């Protein structure tokens, strides 16, 4: 076991879980605007936390794999530029949308839609990046470059579709939308099947027995929502986020011990010596601080948002 990889991958799992729930929310904002209040109650406090976990993943990545920092940045320069622009657009549009009053053509609805579109496209960019890190699609390690045309393979496209089906299928669970209940299991089942098939298309070696864990947990989340006794449990935001993060964490065999189409041995590029010790000790201290703050957050958040002059419930 590589402790440094585990820490970095755990940071990624939480970030990805938060981002996926934001993508689910973005879909609802775009296709079901009248149902926005449930979505905004979640999104408005959480988008800052998603960003922080994103930054946390990137920084721990730089710390964990110093030798990869420059090659990865060089290979993915075009994707990173698009990512950065969308990232700022996402942050700016939702921050403006939260507090803008209805004056002129730029109102809350337009800004929230701008946020939803930038988040969705951002999600697609992240999926392109992840499929390359898993299967190596589009990456030419010898020349240190990335080509979107080489990336367009059956494996990577199936990976994107599978993830999107899963996100759309789980959205009614996360935002507790009973009217869309019937869609949950078919979409989640189809999404899980497509995702598994995409791993096989990328490389048959990716399909290990461990794959059963995320598939089982994903289907279980969908099934529990349909059973009245467990609907509330699984629709609880904290429970759902925890399950989603565990599902993503259990997918680590896709990139460990080898990533980028089995071409890169993670252990060979992980930091060692005094820097590794520093990484783990700061993680312990920072992790403790994070847990304390999260517990405090959960305790206060359980009482519900309570700023009377924060008008998201009346948006649009």
């Amino acid at each position, binding site marked *: 076991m590589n402790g440094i990889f585990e820490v970095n991958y755990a940071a990624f799992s939480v970030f990805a879980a938060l981002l996926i729930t934001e993508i689910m929310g973005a879909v609802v904002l775009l296709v079901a605007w009248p149902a926005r209040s449930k979505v905004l109650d979640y999104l408005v406090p959480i988008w800052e936390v998603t960003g922080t976990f994103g930054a*946390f993943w990137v920084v721990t990545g730089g710390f964990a794999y110093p030798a990869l920092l420059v090659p990865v940045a060089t290979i993915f320069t075009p994707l990173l530029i698009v990512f950065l622009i969308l990232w700022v657009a996402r942050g700016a549009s939702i921050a403006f949308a939260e507090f803008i*009053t209805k004056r002129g053509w730029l109102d809350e609805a337009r800004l929230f839609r701008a946020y939803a579109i930038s988040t969705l496209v951002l999600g697609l960019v992240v999926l392109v990046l992840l499929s390359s890190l898993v299967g190596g699609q589009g990456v030419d390690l010898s020349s240190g470059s990335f080509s979107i045309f080489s990336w367009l393979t059956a494996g990577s496209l199936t990976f994107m579709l599978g993830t999107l089906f899963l996100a759309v299928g789980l959205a009614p669970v996360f935002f507790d939308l009973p009217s869309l209940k019937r869609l949950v299991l078919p979409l989640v089942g189809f999404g899980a099947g497509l995702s598994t098939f995409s791993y096989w298309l990328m490389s048959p070696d990716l399909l290990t027995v461990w794959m059963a864990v995320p598939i089982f947990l994903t289907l279980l989340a969908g099934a529990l929502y349909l059973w009245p006794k467990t609907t509330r449990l699984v629709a609880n935001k904290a429970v759902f986020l925890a399950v989603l993060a565990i599902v993503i964490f259990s997918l680590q065999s896709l990139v460990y011990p080898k990533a980028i189409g089995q071409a890169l041995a993670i252990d060979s590029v992980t930091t060692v010596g005094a820097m590794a010790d520093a990484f783990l000790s700061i993680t312990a201290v920072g992790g403790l601080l994070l847990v304390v703050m999260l517990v405090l957050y959960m305790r206060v958040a359980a009482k519900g948002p*309570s700023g009377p002059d924060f008008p998201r419930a009346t948006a649009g």
Partner: protein
Amino acid sequence: MAVDPATMLSFVRFLFAFTIGSHILLVSTSIALIFLISISEFLSIRRRDPTYEALARKLSKIFIISFGVGTASGIVMAVELVGLFPTFMTLVASTGAMVLLYAEISAFFLEVLALVLYVYYWNAFKGRYTHWVVSLFVAAGTVASAVFITMLNSWMNTPTGFDAATFVSSGFKTITEVQPFAAFLTASTANQVFHVLATTLFAGSMVIGAYFAYWYIKSRDGDEKAMYSRALKILGAMAMITIILSGISGSEQMGNLLVNQPLKYAALDGNAVPGTNLPDRFFGSIVGGAYVGGISVPGMQSLLARFETGLTNLPGLSQFPASTWPPLLVTTTFNLMTVGGLVLGLFLLVYFVSLIRRRRPYESRRMLYLWIPAAILGMLVYQLGWATDEVGRQPWIVYNIMTVAQAANTSDALLVPGIIIIIFYLAVIPATFYFYSRVFNGSKAREGIAA
């Protein structure tokens, strides 16, 4: 069309300077803002004053926008650093400098979670003081982030915590004897952190104050005026305290340069040759190995750098190879910064005198009209300070170890993305300040006070 590496190097320098210069506008206002919010809320509880509470609530919305755009911009800069200066970032990632970035992220978590609790769950706290304490956590996170990033800059000025000789002799390939935590306290860290915090808070206070000064002059609404004058009271106090701290810490900084970066010291003070009892000079230039023109104040240099008179041996450019000199433009930027700081000090002295004579300077139209250009000057001086620090370290990116040219990626593939980033910032920064204003003025002051 291929662009030659020398042109690309200039472009890379400009791109990063432009990005960080834009980012600094957001950061300085953010830091001052959280202090203003926290003090406003404290006064609202202490004095049972609903106007202060309404002010804190309105400003907390601005802080959310500032946080959203500021953190996204910070991530842009982090990725930009990897793309523009890959060799430098490889060194950072393998030494204690990375530990500072990691610590910064931990501070960031403190800030974001405390901020979410503070803003979105304002009324969920039974005790008003408990809610106010959360603002201190937000401020602690904000300040700690700034401190860790400044520590990284100090490490670039006075690098430590690895075997530099082996690193240089191996052609930047071998990094040995790494001491990850040494980067927390380099020779210049304490002085630089002190100076950066004081000046950042000062510049931010002046800029936010200018906004309130403008609206105070313009408004005819009594409730609004009451809110703006309260904000100006706090900001005036913050500006007066931080200008004094900026002066003290600036002098400390020069003393530190004298010991740890003598070449930078010589360039800043325009010392063509070393000597004792040298004058402080303003607005001249070095021509043919001698300082010509401008104004000289005899014997002032030692006094300002060390609080001594005439005893200190002061360095001169002639002691160092000309190839290692920074652009001598820094002499002028340093002079502008110093004189600008003195003018601001004078303005705040008048403000202080007016305050102790009970003339209410925070409600005086004359004083508030002056505040607006003073704030522009304050931000200019602050930016000049950073420019002086960074250009003064040239040609080095990591002092005496790695030059900017050695660290930079001069591929012309960066040209188009770089121009896109510049255009993007040109749109985002004004839009952000426009939204600050639109959101703050989005509701009437009396509605907030009544709530």
